[in-house]
């Protein structure tokens, strides 16, 4: 395992361990199930907000159809993430299914922002390793939290800010790579609108839909301008 690759995932380690532990603690204090169900969920579901919602759904013994709808709606923003990776994951062979499975907010952020100097196949292999590392951090967090339960001793209050800081750094990197501010404004304003107008559970999906709509309008504008020039 390449050290530079591991370094790229360190911010996710700092974010996923405490968040996974928060889920694990919640799981073992709210529910009456064996601790290992928590890391099992990290292995098969691998979704932060989704798993935390799952704890309250399990506690309420929600019907399975309701569970499907709730999890699908909560994670619906991921529908848009794939749109920007259709080309990048093309031809990744057996790794492709895992790359798609592992598309959390954080993995998506890293995979779409990191430099890709090597040949395509090597970079897809690196994408795969990054996804695997990220999931390992998450599962470890879920297991630790569920095992420790209420006995978490150290004060890690605020450590989850590592993920916010990661998103800030990646926004700057995206700006440097693109040289354009429009997508940044589109995203930031969509988020502000969504937070102002929507209940907490729908803010992320609302913001992603608004931002995508802004990009569609920008695309049509550009195309009309091109037609005017050439027509």
């Amino acid at each position, binding site marked *: 395992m390449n050290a530079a690759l591991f370094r790229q995932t360190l*911010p996710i380690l*700092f974010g996923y361990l405490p968040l996974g532990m928060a889920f694990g603690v919640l799981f073992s204090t709210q529910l009456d*199930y064996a601790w290992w169900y928590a890391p*099992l*969920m990290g292995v098969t*579901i*691998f979704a932060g907000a*989704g798993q935390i919602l*799952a704890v309250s759904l399990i506690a309420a013994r929600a019907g399975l159809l309701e*569970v*499907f*709808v709730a*999890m*699908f709606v909560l*994670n619906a*923003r*991921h*529908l*848009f*993430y*794939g*749109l*920007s990776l*259709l*080309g990048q994951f*093309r031809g990744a062979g057996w790794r492709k299914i895992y790359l798609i*499975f592992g598309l959390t907010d954080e993995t*998506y*952020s890293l995979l*779409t*922002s990191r430099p890709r100097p090597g040949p395509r196949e090597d970079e897809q292999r690196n994408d795969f390793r990054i996804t695997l590392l990220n999931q390992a951090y998450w599962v470890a967090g879920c297991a630790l939290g569920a095992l420790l339960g209420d006995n978490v001793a150290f004060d890690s*209050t605020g*450590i989850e*800010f590592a993920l*916010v*800081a*990661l*998103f*800030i*750094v*990646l926004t700057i990197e*995206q700006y440097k790579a*693109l040289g*354009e501010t429009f*997508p*940044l404004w589109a*995203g*930031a304003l969509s*988020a502000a609108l969504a*937070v102002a107008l929507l209940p907490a559970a729908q803010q*992320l999906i609302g913001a*992603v839909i608004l*931002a*995508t709509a*802004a*990009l*569609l309008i*920008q*695309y049509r504008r*550009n195309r009309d301008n091109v037609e005017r020039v050439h027509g």
Partner: protein
Amino acid sequence: MDSTLYILSFIAVATVATFATRVIPFLFLSRHHEHPLLLHIGRYLPAAVMALLVVVFLIKSASWSAPAFGADALLPCAVVILLHLWHRNALLSIVTGTAVYMAIQQSGLTTL
């Protein structure tokens, strides 16, 4: 339903629902990966999503009432931005910003 069966079927359903949100674009749009609209989205959506994640999570990380008025998250945010523009070392920016945020949150200044 017995409770072991319930949690196992719960996990299976949640797994399928989450994976569905991630795989659907690849199932239905793979053949159109060179369509100019999808190329446009593919080029700009990551930047837009990054910016919106920053805004949504910053708002949630901050205490907006007195005495902080959001400064408990906006100050560490400014530290990350300035440090990153200056050194462009991702790990340094993230670790320093997180340390500043943790220090502020644990100091109790936000709940005076």
